[in-house]
């Protein structure tokens, strides 16, 4: 009897130890990767790094400015497309949650979220690049915009659903038309939620490479024309990482470092905003 209980306690301790061990081990890759990126990346960072174009092999120095500008423009255009569209769909889902159509729209959002990003790249290639005959930053933005829709829609829907129904009733009871109630009262109240969802979606697509491979394609020079091919940080990293040259590897590390810092920053901003609207109600 005593022996049985002791063995059970022993197993319990062993199990807990095993769980903790494996959990800690799960964090190891992250720490390793971050450590490596910081170590390699920081040595590449200097002022030149940010304002120069990549130099051909053999020449020292060079920078990632084409990638920086490219990522900024492509993500900006994608946001302009995705945020209004996503917010409206989120609004629709929160207001008409009991409609049959609403169920199918919700299903579409889930499916959209799971589509591999390379497939989206293929689609936009077929829809935009092939008909126009050339790669363009705009096509890259459209692909990214589709990827941004699900997070924006979901967080808009969630925030608006949290708003107490009695506010809507108070406005309607004053004789305010429904559409004005939504636009002037409900939406402003949900703004921080919509914003946090938008910034979250930006942080998710900023690092995406696959959808840009056959749309924005990349560009060794600075380009601000969205109808032409454009570089972006992830594309830079992919191209230079795949090369055999040490110099270009250094560039790739620097770019990785910058990219990770950007994403981290966006994540922190999202968290702060989330705290704001989750507490409000």
């Amino acid at each position: 009897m005593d022996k049985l209980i002791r063995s059970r306690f022993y197993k319990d301790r062993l199990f807990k130890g095993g769980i903790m061990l494996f959990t800690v081990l799960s964090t190891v890759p992250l720490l390793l990767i971050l450590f490596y990126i910081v170590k390699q990346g920081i040595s590449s960072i200097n002022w030149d790094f940010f304002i120069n174009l990549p130099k051909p092999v053999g020449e020292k120095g060079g920078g990632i400015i084409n990638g920086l500008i490219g990522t900024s423009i492509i993500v900006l255009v994608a946001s302009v497309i995705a945020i209004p569209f996503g917010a409206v769909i989120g609004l629709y889902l929160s207001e008409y949650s009991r409609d049959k159509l609403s169920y199918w729209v919700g299903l579409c959002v889930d499916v959209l979220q799971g589509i591999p990003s390379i497939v989206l790249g293929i689609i936009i290639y077929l829809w935009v690049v092939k008909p126009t005959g050339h790669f363009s930053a705009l096509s890259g933005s459209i692909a990214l915009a589709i990827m941004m829709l699900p997070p924006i829609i979901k967080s808009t829907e969630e925030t608006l659903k949290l708003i107490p129904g009695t506010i809507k009733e108070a406005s309607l009871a004053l004789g305010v038309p429904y559409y004005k109630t939504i636009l002037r009262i409900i939406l402003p109240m949900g703004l921080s939620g919509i914003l946090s969802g938008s910034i979250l979606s930006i942080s998710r697509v900023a690092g995406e490479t696959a959808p840009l491979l056959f749309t924005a394609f990349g560009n060794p020079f600075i380009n601000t024309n969205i109808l032409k091919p454009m570089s972006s940080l992830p594309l830079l990293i992919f191209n230079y990482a795949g090369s055999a040259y040490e110099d270009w590897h250094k560039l790739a590390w620097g770019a990785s470092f910058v990219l990770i810092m950007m994403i981290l920053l966006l994540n922190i901003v999202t968290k702060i905003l989330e705290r704001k609207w989750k507490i409000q109600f």
Partner: protein
Amino acid sequence: MINLNEVLTKGFDYKSITHKSKENKKLANVLRFENIFQKGLGLTGIILIIILLSIFITLAITSMPSIKHLGIKFLYSKEWNPVTDEFGALPFLLGTLLTSLLALIISTPFALSSAIFLGEYYPAGIVSNILKNIIELLASIPSVVYGFWGMVVLVPIIRNIELKLHVLPYGVGILTSSIILAIMIIPYSVSLSRQVISMVPPSLKEGAYSLGATRFEVIRKIIIPHTRSGLFAAVLLALGRALGETMAVTMLIGNSHYIPKNIFSPGNTMASVIANEFTEATGNVYLSVLIEMGLLLFVVTTLINISGRQIIKRYIFH
């Protein structure tokens, strides 16, 4: 003189107002806009559905040349000859399945442990928050950075192991990409599994504890059986994610068109073939074959996604 009631009745023909008093006009406009607004909202939902359907239809139509030319051979042939237009996706199908399944096998003990740790042992508090943040951070790292790190850090390690095992020291290959893939899908399985585990009703656990069960026994005999379907869904959704992962795998899998002999061989997945060869594909059939692989990926990940979410919904409402 206009009867106010008539003006403001719903079915009124706004254009026929002859007595254009400002008040009447304004109210009529408001009613008209009200209608447009409500219909407009529904329209945006429909646009989303149309976009999704268009994606599927586009993939299907542009895969037609490949389907017509190759038929079923696409699935079982291992020829890859752009010159003679003979394509078989078998090596890539195998590569995809191998890497994803291997990644699942590698990641599950770690993901499950973390989920149990966060869902059962430490659901709240500083430790829990730090861990949750670390795992979320894992999900934020771009795929291409994972690939790069893998190239520089992981590949030499694997190469060393291969040397010791007297296998060809490619460094890259199925194993290497599976390892990176495993790391990448951990955050997704942990997040969902943790939620599922923390949803076990306390009354169930307390019943077992009051009978003298140890924590291990409660987890093994009460929590895991109860959450079985939820955990399965979490694994399923992680699998869906792994199947579609492109960049890191492309950089670490070795890009070979042959069927991998063992886990140390180089190989290719459907996604990595598309990534590598899409822009260089010459000829209608070649491109169409790659698109057909994209179609396959789309269909499989969508099915996995929908079933996973259905299972979760059913689990929650139980």
